[in-house]
């Protein structure tokens, strides 16, 4: 786990967890966090592959770089850095541009 448990300034906002799926694996997230934060907390850094087969991941965190596009509940091109994780959500790596633009 990569969660910060002890911090001199910050306190954790919530301990309420939600379950979601990454490539059919059940994972735990904290309520109110983005999909990207939840994935990274679970040790997942590779969010997809570019058209040329290069691994892609998180870069800007504020919805500007489009590096974090994933397939969420069947919908491609979701910027997971600014999308909140929800109970039961299914998240998959996006390969290339995906079928839908």
């Amino acid at each position, binding site marked *: 786990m*990569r*969660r*910060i448990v*002890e*911090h*001199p*300034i*910050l306190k*954790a906002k919530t301990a309420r967890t939600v379950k979601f799926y990454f490539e059919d694996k059940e994972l735990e997230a*904290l309520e*109110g*966090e*983005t999909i*990207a*934060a939840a994935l*990274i*907390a679970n040790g997942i*850094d*590779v*969010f997809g592959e*570019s058209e040329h087969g*290069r*691994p*892609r*991941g*998180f*870069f*800007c*965190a*504020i*919805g*500007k*770089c489009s590096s974090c596009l994933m397939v969420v509940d069947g919908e491609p091109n979701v910027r997971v*850095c*600014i*999308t*909140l994780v929800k109970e039961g959500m299914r998240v998959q790596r996006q390969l290339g541009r995906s079928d839908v633009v």
Partner: protein
Amino acid sequence: MMKTQLLVVGGGPAGLCGAIEASRYGVETLIVDEGVELGGQLVKQTHKFFGHEGFFASVRGFEIARRLKNQLNHHVKVMLQTTVVGIYEDVVVLYNREKDRTFEVQADYILLATGASERFIQFENNHLPGVYGAGAVQTLMNQFMVLPGKRFLMVGSGNIGLIVSYQLLQAGAEVAAIVEIADRVGGYDVHLRKIKRFGVPVLLRHTIKKALGEEKVTGAVVVQVDEKFRPIGGTEREFAVDVICIAAGLTPSVELAAMANVKIEYVPELGGFVPYRDQNMRTNVENIFIAGDLAGIEEATTAMIEGRIAGLTVAQSIVGTDLSREIEALQNELVEFRSGPFSEKVRKGLSRFFPQRTVEFSRQPQTDKGPVGKLRPIIECYENIPCNPCQTSCPAGAIEVPGNINSLPRIDYEKCTGCGICVSKCPGLAIFMVQENVEPGFDLVVIPYEMVPLPEKDERVIALDREGKEVCEAQVVKVLRFPDMTNLIYLKVPAGYSERVRNFRTLKRGNVLVCRCEEVTLEEVERAIELGFTDYEELRRYLRVGMGMCGGRTCRSTVLSILSQKLGKSPGELLKGRFRPPVMPVKFESILRGETNED
């Protein structure tokens, strides 16, 4: 179709301040923001801001965001997770991700406060997961409390690079180095000093050449550059890091402004392409205003003032009240903030749009170190930055920032009572207290401390100097807790050391075992490496680590990873050494010199 008098695009410091001022005069306002929370980049700022009290100096960024949100009144509506997808002649189209639908808005006035995006830089494998913008690392660790790695390389030494490095240390990560392509550090000296005290090396005239790794970052190759920023062959060094953090600057997000027919000009001093605007933050399009980073890359304080100017100007047009005096006061505020040497670039850039003024300030540093033997503050703030909480926080009126907030602070030791408030309030953590001869053979040093764990009274710690180097042992004699988390640690140090000690580290890791069989602690391994044992076999013989019953099965990889972290070599390289003894003996000294000489 919704209607609003003012549409504010972007709920960061500039947008919020614009909305606050306009709504204060009853202007119906709609704030639209892409994020999941209002406050923009403020929500991930855990450090205290510079500036003066009127603009939240010495308040932490996320707290500023909270206070600004509370100042919005019922005239303000907020739509989060919403992107402005188009600005047309008579309508603005929004897309709300959560509801997955678009909205149309008609606004009499628009304030664009869209901020900036992180500049990307070119190096081999820069696409790899694990290469992050500095802001992204901040979002993860300070907004969501997730640390994406253990060991970081920071590229860029502007304020963002320095601040994020410090915040990484606070979150318990390691910063292998900060590389800076220029020959001087870009950010404030006080920020630099904060991280140097923890021993983080800053490599000037260096840049990143390559990210290592297949699926994700496992290391970075750093190279020295010449005066023309060309890499010098043969100077490559490898760092074993799992995140490369890029803090190479910001570019204003001008897309929407351009779409709204605002004239965009290229002004490198303001961050690249920026929209034209006048002193009231009005663009060439009558009803469109801009503020914040979009108007030129600066700091949150100037963004807030710009936002207020824009909000008041809009309110003046809508309500008809004459607000020119308030507006002018804020404009003068900006002049004052921008009078220092750090704003020279911004002034130059802005002079393209309207003439710039500056005000005088004093550059005289304090020379008087105060009466020996009295408990008194020493202010180590030597740069003309717009900041004065030291002055405003002192209950005895002993500190003065003469004339203008860009001046250097001075202290009147006659008036000081030694209460320590200024030490805890200084956002630059640049004030310490000392007292010589507090008891025979000992001096006292008071250190502002924002790390965990806090030491306890009577605990023994290792005192560090301004470069993070160990200088002596020290004893904690008092821990003064402050509600805003900048605590004061009173250290008793051997006489004569009060001039040098500016930080410390705890010894708690004495209980952390590396080798279970021989009971070798992490502390011992690290010390041995610092002594010059840089080879696994040497360490084994010196500490007996890995010589126990388990035959090194438990500890070998741990020792290798500690070695790799300390020496900046990949475990791969060290492992090769283990199977193939060195052909020629190398002095430990030379290896260590290789690691530290370009600091």
